[in-house]
């Protein structure tokens, strides 16, 4: 049954929660609003029931296999949430005296240190609030580095064509020009093109390794040599860090700055779109430019380092110190894994991906890079099926929902036609992976038997396929009584 919009509840005069009355306002009338804002009028039970029912209309990790490539949808341990929501952590004011925050600051300090170890970098700042803000911090630090050397002409950021959209968007936000370089047929970067575009205008390069194509960039040593020799720096997009934990490190590969998506590799929840956390790590040469604040240890006390201690910092990227509650969850996760557990994460993430890739290949699906190992994710192309039946990657995605699987990432990276980017993560069982292969095979069989039936999918969700064109052409972004009647 369709859940009404909360404003459609017919509950005149109800209120879900009644605060105590301490007193009335004495604010002069000229500042007061005279209308009453539109808010629900619902009892607590109605509110609880409404949002519980809405939650049940979601796929989630807790309820479905969610192999969304590049998003690392691994299990989010409940204990991480429980401990991040201890009452003293929740009630701590961000500007409170650090004398009342030593436990919290120590935890943040230790998290900084663990993230340095994992990435092989020399310093970490936890303030960026998502991957894209980590990218911003990274590129801003690269610019600040060149500017501090009087090297003002370095305004170009090199980005591979397979990169996440956030990479070029970030470069633009930082005032840089984007230079895109192609990927070679084997999934590695085209080194000749890289050599051709570097020069005195190069600020740096942004790379994800393993790349968004699900393969490890084997020439990373040469790439680092070329970019550094040209005077540029290397930025590591940590979206795929899960695949290499304890196997290699951005620091070993020659990167100068790295962001980590704590909501991917370190299992903090995605929350239907966020919050994330995009902590950044740097080597010695970028250390002076780290975003503030970060935690320092002075004797046996912990304190914030801010602008006074870091005169060359790129500044602040959040009102306080970033998504503290997310950082607490990541800390708990890392301490529970320990050194060995963290390496096992990469082991099993890569094992699961390669197993699923082999099973799909054996079932007759086309791999985008059949000669390559999968990292923690891989790509299949449905181009041939699409050509022969008209059933495309989007149809597969919708049909998978009816089998109880969230779809993989579709149509990304853009350079592989009709692609699915599949990331099973380490927390899935072999049973779940086998079930996914069976569903993919059944959908393909149906595509050849009755393509139109696949194009009807999904049939078991609360809605059928939605009209995205209408959504964009006749925007209905705010509820009003009677719209879409």
């Amino acid at each position, binding site marked *: 049954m369709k859940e009404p919009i909360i404003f459609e509840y017919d509950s005149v005069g109800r209120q879900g929660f009644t605060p105590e009355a301490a007193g009335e306002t004495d604010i002069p009338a000229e500042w007061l609003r005279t209308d009453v804002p539109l808010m629900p009028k619902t009892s607590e039970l109605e509110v609880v029931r409404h949002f519980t029912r809405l939650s049940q209309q979601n796929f989630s990790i807790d309820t479905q296999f969610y192999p969304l490539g590049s998003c690392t949808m691994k299990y989010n341990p409940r204990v991480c949430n429980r401990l991040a929501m201890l009452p003293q952590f929740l009630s701590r004011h961000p500007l409170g005296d650090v004398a009342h925050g030593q436990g919290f600051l120590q935890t943040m300090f230790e998290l900084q240190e663990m993230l340095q170890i994992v990435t092989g970098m020399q310093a970490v700042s936890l303030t960026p609030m998502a991957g894209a803000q980590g990218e*911003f911090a990274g590129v801003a630090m690269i610019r600040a580095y060149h500017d501090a050397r009087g090297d003002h002409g370095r305004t170009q950021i090199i980005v591979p064509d397979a990169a996440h959209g956030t990479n070029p968007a970030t470069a633009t936000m930082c005032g840089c020009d984007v230079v895109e370089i192609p990927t070679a047929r084997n999934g590695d970067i085209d080194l000749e093109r890289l050599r051709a575009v570097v020069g005195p205008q190069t600020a740096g390069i942004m790379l994800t390794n393993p790349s968004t194509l699900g393969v490890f960039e084997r020439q990373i040593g040469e790439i680092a040599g070329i970019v550094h020799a040209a005077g540029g720096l290397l930025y590591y997009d940590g979206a795929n860090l899960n695949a290499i934990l304890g196997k290699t490190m951005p620091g070993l590969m020659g990167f100068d700055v790295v962001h980590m998506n704590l909501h991917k590799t370190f299992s903090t*929840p995605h929350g239907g779109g966020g919050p994330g956390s995009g902590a950044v790590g740097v080597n010695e040469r970028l250390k002076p430019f780290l975003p503030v604040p970060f935690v320092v240890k002075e004797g046996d006390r912990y304190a914030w380092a801010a602008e006074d201690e870091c005169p060359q910092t790129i500044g602040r990227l959040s009102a306080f110190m970033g998504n503290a509650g997310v950082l607490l969850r990541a800390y708990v996760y890392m301490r529970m894994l*320990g050194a060995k557990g963290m390496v096992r994460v990469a082991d099993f993430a890569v094992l699961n991906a390669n197993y699923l890739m082999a099973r799909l290949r054996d079932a007759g699906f086309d791999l985008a890079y059949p000669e390559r190992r999968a990292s923690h994710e891989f790509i299949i192309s449905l181009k041939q099926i699409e050509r022969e039946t008209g059933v495309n990657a989007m149809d597969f995605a919708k049909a998978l929902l009816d089998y109880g699987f969230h779809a993989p990432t579709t149509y990304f990276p853009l350079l592989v036609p009709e692609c699915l980017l599949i990331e099973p993560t380490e927390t899935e069982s072999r049973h779940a992976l086998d079930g996914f292969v069976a569903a993919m095979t059944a959908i393909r069989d149906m595509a050849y038997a009755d393509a139109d039936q696949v194009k009807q999918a999904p049939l078991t969700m609360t809605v059928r396929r939605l009209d995205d064109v209408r959504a964009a052409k006749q925007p209905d972004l705010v509820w009003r009584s009677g719209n879409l009647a």
Partner: protein
Amino acid sequence: MLAGIGVDNIADLFDEIPSNLRAEGLDAIGPALSEAEIARLMQTRARADGEPLCFIGAGAYDHYVPAAVWDIATRGEFYSAYTPYQAEASQGTLQVIYEFQTMLTSLTGLDVANASLYDGATAFAEACLMAVRANRNNKSRRILVPRAMSPVYRSVARAILAGQKIELVELPLQDGCSDSAALGAVADTEFAAVAIQNPSFLGTLEQVDVLTDWAHAQGALVIGVANPMALALLKPPGQWGADGADIACGEGQPLGIPLSSGGPYYGYMVCRQAIVRQMPGRIVGRTVDLEGNPGFTLTLQAREQHIRRSRATSNICTNQGLVATASTIYMSLMGAAGLRRVASDCNANTRALVDALCALPGISRAFPAPFFHEAVLQLDRPAAGVLAALSAQGILGGYDLAADYPELGNAILVCATETKSAADIVSYATAAAGIFGVAA
């Protein structure tokens, strides 16, 4: 599984990593803790931090959050879902955001809201970028920003705008408010936008109508920055001046989000319909499915990085969805009357606190302007020592303004939300009396 892949052991799966780049494990991380061990460790640290009585605001406010808010928000189906790319399997998250957008537009008096940005400070920075893109009257890359606006919002905006050579010009402070007499001095300068924060960082109420009308007459857009809790009482940005602000943004934390050391919070952003295509971030729209039934989907995505890449309105991808979900539940529980009640209580409690403290010799109000739920107090001695002495007694007595506003002398910003009882206010006054050397 290894046999299916055709390898002998897991190590073989990493054979594409060049041998000279191999790491030797992560031993420095240390051994694993069991769930019981990490629980004990975290509880010990949390207890050591304690729960001091908090009279600090300065951008993050201690409000009571009903139990149902986070109980529901942390249900696994909300907590562990991704961005709703597969709309048919994400109708729950999408409908919540649509309801959230509706509540925020109504609260601010504007037309269209997005699904959240990181926090109030970054929302302000994004609003500046948006205003530069959206202003059709001029090509200015200057924003007029009051000194009465949050110092950290200004600082974050400077960091984010630096690369694009957008300049913040300061509108001076007079008696705790923006000095409208100083507008004449900048009347010949073109601005993409004029920012107005109401209530200001210092708690005061600004001349929003005068400032808005002046900005529009200059061809500038108006960015209204507002504490959304205050908007339960105060005239919303959409009703400022003759035409209203063009963009409103701010910190969503007061609406159901715990203080939690500064995050995760969420930034909200709302704008007029005419400039929605310059808005950053995700937006949810209602549409129909192929049977004509209503449903929800992400829309106007041609603004976003995954489509537009280097020409996107922003690089934002992940936002603060779960926090916005909690906030939607909070607003649903409170209703308009509940929000108004909380806002009124905050105003009354801060007045009571100010009266109690200003009864002591050595403490007085810094300026007479009306305030919402924060006020600046002038002290007869350095604030740092006073706040440290209060802290030692378990009271966070306010925010020291010395670093941000040295011109105010020994001054603190205090706040008493609806969570503070009359007894709490007496506790503060008694402790302050002891420090200032008088009997309470």
